[in-house]
């Protein structure tokens, strides 16, 4: 590790000087005017500077406004339907909102369906995603690891509607014989009971596609965190004679525990909000049912319900849908905040972390992963060098 550090740290400096040499030719001419005076404080503020500063501060504030606006407009539009009397209101007593006592009766089963399908997707996707991350970070040959990571990141680039089409054409028929087998052999388990589907438009099929869609986010975050395991810990475990798996159990997993949890939660956040795959694949019903492979007993999710019913809704019904959207917004916000706070707390307790030289490909296709990473390496502008050198001294 110390070799790593000494070999990597000088190189950015060298390049920075090179770049500077190229640039200084023009730079002082551009802005040297104001600083000629003796006083440091009294240099006058240039208008360009002022405009630029207020522009950047303004857009930072704008972002707060946008998020507040999202919540505000959802509330404005959603509340009329939430407080409306669903029993007597004529426009709510027709179409897809028929026969619900109030808003909560309508949104309850949808909430259940959303959480249920995402949970199944997580059960399928999280172990595979973490396995892939482990493969790329610790098993695959170092030279091809970056490329393999890029391939998995490609999954994140495929539009969700394409996954939906793929689910209809490939996954539905593929799961049919499997679900028949489950139903006839394991039908006594409530999950697999009921009348088995003949079309394949089940919540199982939807969740399988969801699990494919959350793979890249889980993989990229846990991979990066696996890669940050201190090399010394790993080498110590290996030197004590552990096999590679024991080394991973001893050194990597304890270090990456919080990262794995938050990766999974961020995957959950993605699964909760996913619309198209579910809307296209499942033939839904608004009910609470834990049966996976039935016809017409598949719990609908909030997002898919909005997508399916929005075009045919009347004004108040639209507001009801916006109200369900508000619920979804609150839930996914909560999941995301919990995930991020786990990452932050984990990194605070884990002491100073050092970056290993990153993979040849920085996975940028996934914004959430880089977001989580930024928290993990608190202030990467300074830390890698300073934290590195201080631990260096300690280890020598």
């Amino acid at each position, binding site marked *: 590790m110390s070799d790593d550090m000494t070999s990597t740290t000088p190189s*950015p400096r060298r*390049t*920075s000087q*090179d770049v*500077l040499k190229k*640039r*200084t030719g023009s*730079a002082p001419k551009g*802005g*040297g005017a104001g*600083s000629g005076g003796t006083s440091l404080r009294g240099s006058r503020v240039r208008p*360009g*500077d002022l405009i*630029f*500063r207020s522009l*950047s*501060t303004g*857009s*930072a*504030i*704008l*972002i*707060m406004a946008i*998020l507040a606006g999202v919540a505000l*407009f*959802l509330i404005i*539009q959603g509340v009329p339907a939430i407080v409306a009397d669903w029993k007597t209101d004529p426009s709510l007593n027709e179409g897809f909102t028929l026969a619900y006592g109030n808003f909560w009766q309508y949104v309850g089963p949808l909430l259940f369906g959303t959480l249920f399908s995402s949970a199944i997707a997580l059960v399928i996707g999280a172990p*595979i995603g973490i*396995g*892939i991350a482990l*493969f790329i970070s610790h*098993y695959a040959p170092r030279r091809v690891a970056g490329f393999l990571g890029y391939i*998995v990141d490609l999954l994140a*680039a*495929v*539009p*969700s*509607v*394409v996954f*939906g*089409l*793929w689910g*209809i054409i*490939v996954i539905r028929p*593929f799961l049919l014989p499997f679900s028949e087998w489950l139903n006839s052999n394991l039908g006594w388990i409530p999950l697999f009971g009921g009348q088995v589907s003949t079309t394949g438009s089940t919540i199982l099929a939807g969740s399988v596609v969801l699990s494919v869609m959350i793979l890249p986010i889980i993989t990229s975050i846990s991979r990066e965190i696996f890669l940050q395991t201190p090399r010394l810990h790993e080498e110590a475990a290996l030197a004590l004679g552990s*096999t590679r798996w*024991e080394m991973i159990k001893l050194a990597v997993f304890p270090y990456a525990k919080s990262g794995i949890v938050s990766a999974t939660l*961020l995957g959950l956040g993605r699964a909760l*909000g996913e*619309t*198209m795959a579910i809307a296209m694949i499942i033939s839904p019903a608004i009910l609470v049912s834990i049966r996976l492979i039935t016809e017409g007993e598949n719990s609908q999710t909030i*997002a898919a319900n909005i997508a399916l019913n929005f075009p045919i809704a009347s004004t108040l019904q639209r507001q009801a849908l916006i109200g369900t959207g508000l619920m979804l917004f609150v839930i*996914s*916000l909560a999941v*995301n905040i919990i995930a991020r706070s786990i990452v932050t707390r984990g990194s605070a307790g884990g002491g100073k972390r050092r970056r290993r030289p990153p993979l040849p490909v920085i996975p940028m*296709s996934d*914004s959430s992963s*880089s*977001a989580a990473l*930024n928290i993990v390496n608190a202030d990467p502008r300074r830390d890698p060098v300073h934290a590195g050198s201080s631990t260096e001294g300690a280890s020598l």
Partner: protein
Amino acid sequence: MTLLRQRAAQGGPPANALTSGQLPRFAEVSIIGGSAVASGLVLMLLGFNLVGWLVLTAVVYLVVLGVLSSIVENRRKATDRLVRGTVTVAFLLAIVPLVSTLYTVISRGISSLTLEFITQSRSSSFNADTLEVTNTPGALQAIVGTLIITGIAALISIPIGLFTSIYIVEYSLPGSWLARTVTMLVDVMTGIPSIVAGLFAFSLFSIIMGPQAFSGFSAAVALSVLMIPTVVRSCEEMLRLVPDDLREASLALGVSKFSTIVRIVLPTAIAGIVTGIMLSIARVIGETAPIFMAASFTDNFNANPFDGPMQTLPVMAYTGFAFPGPDIQASNNSAWGAALLLVLLVVLLNLIARIVARVFAPKGSR
């Protein structure tokens, strides 16, 4: 050592100290081959299918490897090998949907992807003699819609995102509450479900414009809610990669902060910034739900983002399946055509992003 001593005490065969108690190197390869052949033969009897064969091969391989290794080596090494095998299988499992998706989209979409499909918008003509309506498939309205909506979204998000990241990295004092809040909010924004962004845009514009507030601009607003956090993230990351030495040197020469950022920091980070922006465009260009909410869908050609529904490629792919016309086959075909076009666009954007990253990256770093 203890093992060797035991062996010696038992009077076993003299062992090579380095390779005794290990499976030979060719063992794994030959077990893979063997289990592939064996499961192939078994499935020949039961009825062959490719997926079953691969699954059975993997299972047989893992079982045989585990058993052999625990006999020849020991339990710890057997577990190690098993985990290695399982993890590799997990990776291969992730490749399957990728390949399968791409194959399905290409094989189904390639037939409808003709020059007419790209250059015509969808139209119907009525033949008065035969009383038949003939529909010509076409995706021009969707292509134009996608480009306009994504373009406007990019125009909104790139300045906001770039300036915000400049604020966070360059202007904010370390630990200032605004910077911390904004960073936190950007993190939170990355988790906004896309459909909620669509609902937001619809709510906003229905308050301004009345209940039928479908327009391309509204969809662009929805997309920028999704795009801004990704732009901020990637730009922030890239700006942080610029060494502090550069900024300090420039400031020490008396260059103003503004000029330092515009002439020194941004040019150094430009490759990464462009790459990040490209990738975030590629990300929102495939969003279906928000556009569907905010811009609805139509078969008519509409290039005015401020008035009326607009068609886009992802929505076209969705509606072709969800709300097919009278000729279901034709609708499905054009849906696949749209999906293929969309995938091509995304791949193109990703490629450009990678090329930009490679060509314009500052020499030496990364």
